[in-house]
């Protein structure tokens, strides 16, 4: 339900910032006679209030402003029509000629690419059979995979962020290039259509990530996803790592750069859909996928990223875990145990370092009020070595390095716990080099000068 509302909101938002545009087609089917009315609304069978108003001004300023309604909404034959008849098949070719090539335009390539992707097929039960790419209204209830509309609304022809740049460039082509290139054809094909693409991409990296996160950051939703084993065709719930992929990505420098507004970071699509194939998101296991082991050097080594990744000796680098679950919050311990996460090196390091840190913390907290403070206070560990190496106390005549007084850690800890002065250390039996006995008090008072 929320998702539906979100779509409507997105759709409306898409219309909210249009470039004012002249009427680009004459509404041959007369759709605007109803849909042009303000406040045209209905409640669907789920009780969701849906807005059916299409403002002419906004529509003409949108990406599909030059496409008459029925080019996409083909099933609508008569009035009144059912909402389902509004479904769109994005792989159909429309009657509009694509300006730069002059051929009938179609999204077929994209739909084909999408069909083969992880979102279009593979693990998606039923998605391939009647996938028409269009605007399923109820997708979030019945379907695991997204339709086109999950990510694409009919946004303004030029997104607000690019308008200033577009205007400037348009002016340039009109004035400078226009000396030779005159006429509407040039304006339509180059200045208008191609320039729009050159002036900046429709989605920024953060917007792309927002689209992915719209589903993938919803852990409850992701836990329900069933992935198909490519070999056995068995459908299993996705594992912990997959469910939290969006979280673990957020901890990488790629994501943190984008969060801070530095566009050098890599978006989801920069790695998962390379080479301009923005819809070809495939699973790692898929041979040829941009995140497949064999392809990683190419993917990481894209222009402007890590150029050296293609070269030998960087195998370790390209295999750096970009979805490292060790960055994730610790609170799902049970889940962690279930997923055998204790094998991780970080866990092992923590098992050693953590208790040590806690021990010191507790000891220090207890010692501050209760510890005895007679004489100079020495550190728990390493105080003798400091004395010997830095202060150079009692070097013997031959100039040889004095052997350690042999006071072990255990003695130190005992004396620390008991608050007693360390006792005269016993010379280690198997240490014949011990030349002179250690000083009785290894820590001379602060002001005492070296004799």
């Amino acid at each position: 339900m929320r998702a539906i509302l979100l779509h409507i909101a997105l759709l409306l938002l898409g219309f909210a910032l249009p470039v004012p545009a002249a009427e680009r087609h004459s509404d041959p089917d007369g759709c605007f006679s109803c849909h042009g009315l303000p406040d045209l609304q209905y409640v669907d069978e789920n009780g969701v209030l849906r807005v059916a108003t299409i403002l002419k001004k906004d529509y003409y300023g949108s990406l599909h402003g030059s496409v008459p309604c029925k080019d996409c909404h083909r099933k609508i034959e008569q009035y009144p029509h059912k909402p389902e008849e509004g479904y769109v098949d994005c792989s159909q070719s429309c009657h509009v000629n694509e300006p730069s090539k002059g051929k009938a335009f179609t999204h077929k390539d994209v739909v084909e690419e999408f069909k083969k992707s992880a979102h279009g097929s593979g693990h998606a039960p039923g998605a391939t059979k009647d996938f028409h790419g269009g605007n399923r209204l109820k997708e979030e209830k019945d379907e695991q995979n997204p339709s086109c509309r999950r990510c694409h609304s009919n946004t303004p022809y030029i997104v607000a962020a690019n308008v200033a740049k577009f205007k400037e460039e348009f002016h340039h082509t009109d004035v400078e290039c226009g000396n030779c290139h005159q006429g509407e054809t040039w304006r339509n094909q180059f200045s208008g259509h191609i320039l729009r693409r050159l002036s900046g991409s429709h989605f920024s990296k953060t917007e792309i990530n927002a689209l992915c996160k719209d589903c993938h950051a919803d852990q409850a939703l992701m836990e329900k996803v069933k992935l198909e084993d490519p070999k056995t065709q068995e459908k299993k719930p996705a594992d912990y790592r997959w469910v939290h992929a969006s979280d673990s990505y957020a901890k990488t420098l790629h994501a943190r750069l984008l969060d801070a507004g530095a566009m050098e970071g890599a978006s989801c699509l920069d790695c998962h859909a390379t080479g301009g194939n923005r819809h070809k998101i495939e699973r790692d296991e898929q041979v040829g996928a941009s995140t497949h082991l064999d392809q990683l050097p190419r993917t990481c080594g894209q222009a402007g990223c890590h150029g050296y990744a293609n070269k030998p000796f960087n195998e370790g680098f390209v295999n750096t875990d970009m979805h490292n679950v060790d960055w994730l919050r610790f609170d799902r311990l049970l889940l962690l145990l279930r997923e055998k996460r204790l094998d991780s090196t970080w866990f092992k390091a923590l098992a050693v370092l953590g208790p040590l840190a806690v021990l010191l913390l507790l000891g220090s907290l207890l010692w501050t009020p209760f510890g005895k403070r007679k004489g100079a206070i020495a550190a728990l560990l390493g105080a003798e070595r400091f004395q010997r190496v830095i202060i150079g106390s009692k070097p013997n005549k031959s100039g040889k390095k004095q052997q350690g007084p042999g006071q072990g850690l255990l003695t130190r800890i005992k004396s620390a716990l008991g608050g007693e002065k360390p006792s005269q250390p016993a010379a280690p039996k198997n240490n014949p080099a011990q030349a002179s006995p250690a000083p009785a008090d290894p820590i001379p008072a602060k002001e005492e000068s070296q004799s």
Partner: protein
Amino acid sequence: MQVQVIEKLKAIPKIQKYRYGTIFLSCLLFLGPLALLPRLAGNTDLCGRLCMRRFYLYFPGMNLEDFFTHVSVALIGVVAFTTILVFTFFFGRIWCGFICPVGGFAELVSRSLNDRWKIEFRSLPQVQIRYGYLATYLVLLPALGISACTLCNFITVPRLVEALSGGVTGLAFIFSTIGLVNLSLLFLLGFFASKGRAYCQFLCPIGALDGLVNRLGARFGMTHHIRVDKQRCTGCNVCARNCMCGAIKMVDRVAVVEQLSCMSCHECVDVCDWNAIEWTTASRNKVPKRIKKGVEIHPEPDWQAVHFLPNKAAVSDWKRVNWARVANGLIFTMATLFVAATTLLLK
């Protein structure tokens, strides 16, 4: 207990109080929920464009273009780091000693804890460990695919401070496996290290590179660095005891400053009763700045920047090997060979 705390506070030399003040101030400016300075650059932490730790990493076969990509990503960090290095050349490691909120935070916490439950790291072979780790960090870890961000003090401390003020990002970081490992390291090498600077001395690549520049700068007479007047030093070793970096070692009863480790924190200057150690240029005929106990000390000091020198015994006795030097040499040679070999092979 209160009396002790007050006594402890009173015992802090005056200039050191200012230093703690500047560190505290920069903690406020750089860290926490406010993070005022990073915010000027649109950041809430010291990462990303502000990162001073990543752009010089070496990846096998990288070319200048790749390097410039790294530089352009972290441009603010590069500018800051360059400024720090230039300052260090002329004035010693002022950034590390007086400003850096990361090392400074650990130091302040450590100094406010008792001295008993601490680990004394200062006498370890610092130079070898630091530059051994630096070489690994620069050339080996990138190729192995261990991200510089996983063991980074510049993310741990800001996130910890953020977490302490209830920040969500900070809490999420601290309570992750990697976050907890980093926190443990901060405890062991920061809070519970004697004087709190072990993280700086062993694991911080910024500090390690800064140390190299510091030592280079100290070779020039006109730069300000911590210098010792050998004629005056009485060998009382108070400075060595107090040096938070373990940079001072008593050699033949004279304090010798290891410029690779010294952070120009001035504590040694403050505690030396004999005006034998100063933050100064090497120029002669300088009137001593401070006259202690009303006594002016003559003759005029001849300040030298002294480094650890090879043991006399090691020079005269061929059987004794100076292992510290051997280790330094090995680290340098291995790293250079690795870079040279990969560059040549991948041409």
